[in-house]
């Protein structure tokens, strides 16, 4: 079993929920390795933000990209080589603000990649501004008087965009994260996981969450209406119980399949094809 720890020094704050995600993805990958997954074919893509440092901390191929762009990069990689297992790690600022349209299109296309959003509901690395999932009235550094926007519910948005796998995890719950990561990676299609990842420094919600989270039981993840109901139970704003687990899963054709038969011609076929194309232009 390969060690998945890269030599980079970890610089997350003590108590940061990112540690849980890191600690869950490693065994999840190692378990899949035991079942035959080639770790050399795993590619991790990250954005920019505290979350994104995970690319440095995992001993696998990685593309540490730019703020908000995990998904187009991951899509390009998967289209290029469908044999790769592509896992994106994004932030909530990253994925729900800067690059929100890519999220909707990844769901729409059902490209076979996994997206794990470290949703700490704050911009961590830029020191504490509100994000699209911060609650109404959140006092951050760009909104010292409190935000005047209601939060988005990312699961509801991905569901309405055609998502085929939707789950929610919590950074205080490594076992569930392991299970969800495994399911998401194995899912054929776009697997979306919103992880309530507590930012210990700028938005410490451990107590709040601990009192409200529960794991989905007897939930029919194949039912759209059951999923919708559970997804809307908590709107990231009002008081409510917060369900964790797999909300919805269905099977749909995947995007990259439609491209997988194509690979570039090589010499001399290529030159021949050029010549005959030119021929047709006479």
């Amino acid at each position, binding site marked *: 079993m390969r060690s998945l720890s890269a030599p980079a020094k970890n610089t997350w704050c003590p108590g940061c929920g990112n540690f849980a995600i890191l600690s869950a993805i490693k065994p999840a990958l190692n378990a899949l390795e035991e079942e035959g997954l080639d770790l*050399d074919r795993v590619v991790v893509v990250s954005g920019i933000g505290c979350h994104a440092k995970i690319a440095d901390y995992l001993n696998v191929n990685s593309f540490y990209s730019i703020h908000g762009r995990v998904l187009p990069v991951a899509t*390009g990689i998967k289209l290029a080589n469908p044999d790769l297992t592509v896992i994106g790690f994004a932030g909530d600022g990253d994925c729900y603000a800067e690059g929100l349209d890519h999220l909707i299109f990844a769901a729409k296309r059902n490209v076979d990649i996994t997206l794990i959003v470290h949703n700490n509901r704050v911009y961590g690395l830029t020191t504490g501004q509100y994000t699209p999932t911060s609650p109404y009235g959140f006092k951050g550094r760009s909104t010292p008087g409190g935000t005047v926007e209601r939060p988005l519910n990312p699961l509801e948005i991905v569901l309405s965009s055609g998502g085929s796998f939707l789950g929610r995890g919590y950074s205080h719950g490594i076992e569930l994260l392991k299970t969800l990561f495994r399911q998401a990676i194995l899912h054929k299609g776009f697997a979306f996981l919103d992880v309530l990842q507590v930012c210990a420094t700028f938005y410490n919600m451990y107590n709040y969450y601990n009192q409200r989270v529960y794991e989905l039981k007897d939930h029919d993840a194949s039912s759209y209406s059951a999923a919708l109901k559970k997804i809307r139970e908590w709107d990231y704003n009002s008081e409510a119980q917060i369900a964790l687990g797999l909300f919805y899963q269905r099977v749909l054709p995947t995007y990259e399949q439609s491209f997988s038969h194509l690979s570039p011609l090589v010499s001399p076929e290529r030159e021949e094809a050029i010549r005959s194309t030119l021929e047709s232009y006479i």
Partner: protein
Amino acid sequence: MAHPSEKPQVYRMFIYREVQISFLKSPVKGMDWARWFFQPDCCPSLQDRGANRMDSLSVLIGGKAGDGINEAGMLISRTLNQMGYRVYQYYDYPSLIRGGHNFSLVRAERYPIASHKDSVDILLALNQETVQLHQSRLNKESAIIFDDSQVQAEGMAIPVGRIIKEEAAAPIMRNTCMVGALCRAASIPLEVLEGAVVRHVKKKTELNLRVAGRAYKSAVERFSLERLDQEPMPIITGNEAIGLGLLRSGLGAYVSYPMTPSSSLLHFLANAGPDFGVKVVHPENEIAVVLMALGFAYAGVRSAVGTSGGGFCLMNEGLSLAGQSEIPLTLLVSQRAGPSTGGPTYTAQSDLHFVINAGQGEFVRLVVAPGDAEEAYFWSGLALDLSWRLQIPAFILSDKTLSESAYCFSLSRAGEPPEQPPERWDFQIPYQRYLRTPSGVSPLAFPGQKGAQIKVNSYAHDQSGLTTEDAFELASMQDKRMRKEAALNEALAEQMTVKSMGHLDSPTALICWGSNKGVCQEVGASFGLRVVQPVVLWPFPASQMGAALEGVEDLICVECNSTGQLARLMECQGLEPGRRILKYDGRPFSTEELAARLKEVV
């Protein structure tokens, strides 16, 4: 056109390879090759042609958007090509789908051309507006051919309405009618036109043939266009040539969001791509475009993107990422009249400095600006190849005129872009994506390769790709990346990065870039001038430029922008760019306009 016949015409061998090749392989036996290459006005046969006997033709077909004007222009071009002519087509249209005024200018000559003339021998009018708008192009020998159901004019009335009606043809076939009439007027045998229709009109071929034939019959002969003993050639647009060049260098994915005048490359590759095994993706926006292309390249697939200024703005951040992460990226940026939406279907050369300086931070890039379809093929291929060899962004800087005009294309004249596989990982453990090497280029490996961990990073990073903020690493990795400029210059030194044309001993040089090449070559030569065209614009080809300008005392920069972007670039290199002939009304120079402007300054 201004005709400085008093100037002595010194025919000299062109120094650049492609011309020598074309000379050797010229299908025209025993031809006067120098004349074959030079401007029309010094060729006696063009001056002294009999009243109706011609060996060149300038045709305009005009109508509304939706009348199929571009297609008609292409059909005319192909027909003239079949008559042995070298042709060039310029297509002018506003940004709308139906209505408005569109026109194509097709010009045919014995020798290769890449410019249009204002004056026309035959005006084909599908509507009244065409006659009104283009009066000034006509001389007393010009013929007007028109659809008599729509147009009132002096000239050759064709019962287009009746033919269409009687043949129960679609209104769009009015354009085929006009081409039929044109052929008769120019004494082009009907079989030649029919051959072109059969080859190129795939929809309702029979009906088109019938319609063309009836129009042919209803017209009369006005000119007698000589049939030339030259093989027909492929006629392709600049964007098609770019596409073929990219395919030649192993393109595996093309990612693009539609934007005039780059879209036709997307359409071309969406059609041709599958045959070449190319994945063509049109994503949600240009940001996704460039990031997807980088994803492709990271995973080992040669990718390219295409756009115009506004879309390129959105790619700047990805471009800078390519610079830092050293992922190959090839970009077509096809310029149009700006700023902002500007004149989206009109031409400009006003993004040169933008492209050279785009993206935050400093990194090595290549910018090539081909001047015609053949250069577009060669340099697009080379750009893609160099971007892989050196792991840098490479730009193909085009403009509406080059991208959408149609040119005769010869593969042998174009030349095959050299191919040199990028350095690959030698399986030494551990793999280091950013290994510091003397050239600055680190060996490549792709995810999936056993035993290699390929870590690319937008942050400053160490050799293995892990983030670092260490002062030494920041500076030394910047040095590593910048070293590639030397390697790039070395690779470019083997190429003809600057072309010298015209009268090579003239102390006055016309400097041009991009699509202005054709008109400058032709008009410059007719003025007895040297014509110098840098094809590579960045890194600036200082030494080849210096060589090309040896003995030059007087420089004139010809550009389609309002500030003289190449002139400014030369200034930055300590070269005195001299006078400027600038045009920024969205229209390319015609031979006549350039000649008139030149007269003012020479």
